[in-house]
């Protein structure tokens, strides 16, 4: 993760076991623990976030399609938007991984950094979290356009590392 990420005030720690449940876009209840045994990449997004749109094809083609048969699970988590709006984004980018709806922001609050004047639902947008097969958090990185390239590479590298464990 970036140096900046290490200096943020967070309500979680690397190595911590995490779990949550959210409804997916079809209304099905999905828990992180449903994917125990897989390496999970969770991506927080909104439909109006330009950088999320920029990254959307990469998540499907470079991450999900290349790693789904190797033990990786991608989960996209929308922050505070309607199912109808999120469905438009899913269709637009042909996402075939689960898309979850954090409609009340409770999962967002858990994963967002705490910073005065910065609401969790803004701070969390376009962030990556990677959990290992035991649901332990092993990597996270928030949006930083100076590291947009580096983060894309770091995410793939971390997935490969955890798959090799």
């Amino acid at each position, binding site marked *: 993760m970036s140096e900046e990420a290490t200096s943020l005030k967070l309500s979680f720690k690397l190595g911590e076991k995490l779990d949550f449940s959210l409804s997916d876009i079809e209304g099905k209840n999905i828990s992180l623990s449903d994917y125990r045994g897989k390496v999970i990449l969770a991506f927080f997004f*909104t*439909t*109006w*976030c*330009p*950088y*999320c*749109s*920029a*990254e959307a*094809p*990469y998540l499907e083609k470079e991450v999900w399609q290349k790693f789904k048969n190797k033990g990786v699970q991608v989960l996209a988590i929308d922050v505070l938007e309607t199912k109808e*709006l999120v469905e*438009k*984004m899913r269709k*637009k980018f042909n996402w075939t991984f689960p898309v979850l709806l954090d409609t009340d922001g409770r999962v967002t609050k858990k994963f967002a950094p705490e910073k005065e*004047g*910065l*609401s969790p*639902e*803004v*701070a969390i*947008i*376009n962030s990556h979290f990677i959990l290992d097969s035991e649901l332990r958090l092993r990597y996270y990185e*928030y*949006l*930083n*356009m*100076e590291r*947009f*390239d580096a983060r*894309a590479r770091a995410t793939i590298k971390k997935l490969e590392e955890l798959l090799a464990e």
Partner: protein
Amino acid sequence: METPDIKVEWDPKKFTEGEKSTIEIHLEIPEGIHIQAHKPAEDLLIPTNISLKDSGNVSFGQPVYPEPKRLPVSWSQVTLLVYEGLVNIQFPIQVAKNAKVGKHTIEGRLSFQGCTDQLCLPPKEQVFVLDTEII
């Protein structure tokens, strides 16, 4: 960080009865922030839209937005279309022939969505008021 307001100015500020001309609205986008253009790069993104409210004394045509700046996003295939810094938008204006002489206020609305290098800020709609005079 809340989405900051964008400073809105305009000129000219004085008109004569019956005048038909063009006004220019100046948006001063805070440093470090870019906002999506009126026609953004992707259809789900939030466009910048500005409107001015007609009154019995003045009416406005459709705004003319400037050419956006192209902002490639790193390795992705997306090039964002954005505004940053000072942005000028033109509006046709028609002052009524029997417009009431004196000071008036014009109400306007500006909606936009902006990002910094580290945050994408929620969409915002701001209401603004412009002072004018019919002479």
